[in-house]
């Protein structure tokens, strides 16, 4: 599926933070996790993830460290910080609002009652 660029950019922060909230990770694994969670429907251009990670690091939401991976290569791992978790909670509220709104609109016309 071809996603709107702005939508990708806006959703990248909560997606990355949410994945890192599951546990420390690194770029490649994050991309794989996104593919897995979206059932392959959402594909990021791999390289674009890294500027996003660097921005989140600059803002203090995540912290990076270099560490030796199991294959012997040095790998950059990211960990979510307390302020990153706070930001994630904030983003979550906003996305839930948008989500609820869209569901509401799309439901009218189909005559289904709310399941909430």
């Amino acid at each position: 599926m071809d996603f709107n660029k702005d939508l990708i950019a806006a959703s990248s922060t909560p997606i990355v933070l949410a994945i890192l909230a599951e546990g420390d990770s690194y770029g490649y694994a994050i991309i794989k996790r996104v593919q897995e969670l979206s059932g392959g429907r959402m594909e990021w251009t791999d390289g674009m993830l890294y500027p996003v990670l660097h921005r989140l690091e600059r803002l203090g939401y995540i912290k990076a460290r270099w560490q030796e991976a199991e294959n012997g290569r040095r790998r950059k791992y990211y960990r979510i910080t307390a302020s990153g978790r706070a930001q994630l909670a904030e983003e979550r509220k906003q996305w839930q609002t948008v989500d609820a709104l869209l569901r509401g609109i799309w439901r009218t016309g189909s005559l289904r009652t709310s399941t909430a």
Partner: protein
Amino acid sequence: MEGHSTQQHLENHIAQWRIYLQRRQSIHSVDIAELEDHLREEIAALTRSGLSSDEAFLVAVKRMGSFDELSREFAREHSERLWKQLVLPSEHPLSARSDGFTAILFAVVAGIFVKIPELFGLHIGVDDGFYARNMGIFVLPVLAGYFALKREPDTARFIGLGIAFALAGVFGNIYPFGASQYTEVLSILHLPIALWFAVGIAYAGRRWKDVAGRMDFIRFSGEFFIYYVLIALGGGVLTAFLTMMFQSIGMKPEWFIQSWLVPCGAAGAVLIASWLVEAKQSVIENMAPVLTRLFTPLFTALLITFLVTVFVTGKAIDLQREVLIAFDLLLIVVLGLLLYSISARDTKLPPGFFDRMQVILIISALLADAVALWAISARITEFGFTPNRVAALGVNIILLVNLAWSAVLYLRFLADRGPFADLERWQTNYLPVYAAWSAIVVIAFPPLFGYM
């Protein structure tokens, strides 16, 4: 043997790929290491699913994204890196030569603007008050126009800037200033500062809303100042030769120097300096951060020695009438040192020796200023509230607030309790305060103090 040579082949491919990335200066080698780790993971996964290593390499590189896109995304996040080397692969490339031509054209326009009042009988050397009040109004709109054209043109911004400059022209000139000239001099000093803010909006364009855009304007301002001083020095040498040579053949070139060379040159140099900063940002190391590195330790040593001396000898600050202005200048210098060390700092580096030095500098400057403020507070009513003193006090408070909060943010960063970006954001968000205060001094002070 076969496996070995395939592996070798792949390594060559990856090495080639790395070299291509290294040419993009917005991507540093540490980022390349991170991307390479990603690329290798991807290749390994693709090979496991049955692709040959050549195919896997091609697919992995494709998924990584094109070099242009990658370097643009990195440049967006790391705009500070562009200042040393790279020219952002712009979507509307304007060749260096045509850009230089535009700058010279605008410089000529600025020079002509300065001479237009002459047509209306206002002469340099006679109506100096008029020229001093309006120098910024002649030149800075041309500079703002130059940037507005270079960036993506936007009608709303053009109109907004036009209104701002028109208001500056009105408030710079309508007041019936008295003979003592206090508020007139204040207006002359503050108007260019407020207008420089308008130049910033034209300079940053759409990026004015971003911290990075405003930070770039701060960088630009520092480099601009240095280039301008250098051009002025060169102009001084040229003027000296001109005088000497024409005098040697018995002619007096003073009239030309005073009413043509100096005013038009000073106006045109603003455009030329701006163009040079833009053109050279990609070629040489920025100078403001270098000077900052040099003078931060020296100013810190000066301030600490001063404080220790005051403390040990118990000497009170000699309350000369304008002592506050001297301390304002000190705070401005300290703020400059802080700004240009922030502007050149990689926000992700952990706290280091130089950061601690900065904090000591800020805190000792705050203490020295507190000593001065304390000394003056007792006598301020006795001296009376002249426009100069109110203006000096206002500037002092504005700088004090900025530096005090900067110290708090810096200490939080040193204690690993906040990101360095907070400090950056605080400084860039503070810019409108200077402009607002300058506007108040220009617009409200003359009527408030009865045009004295």
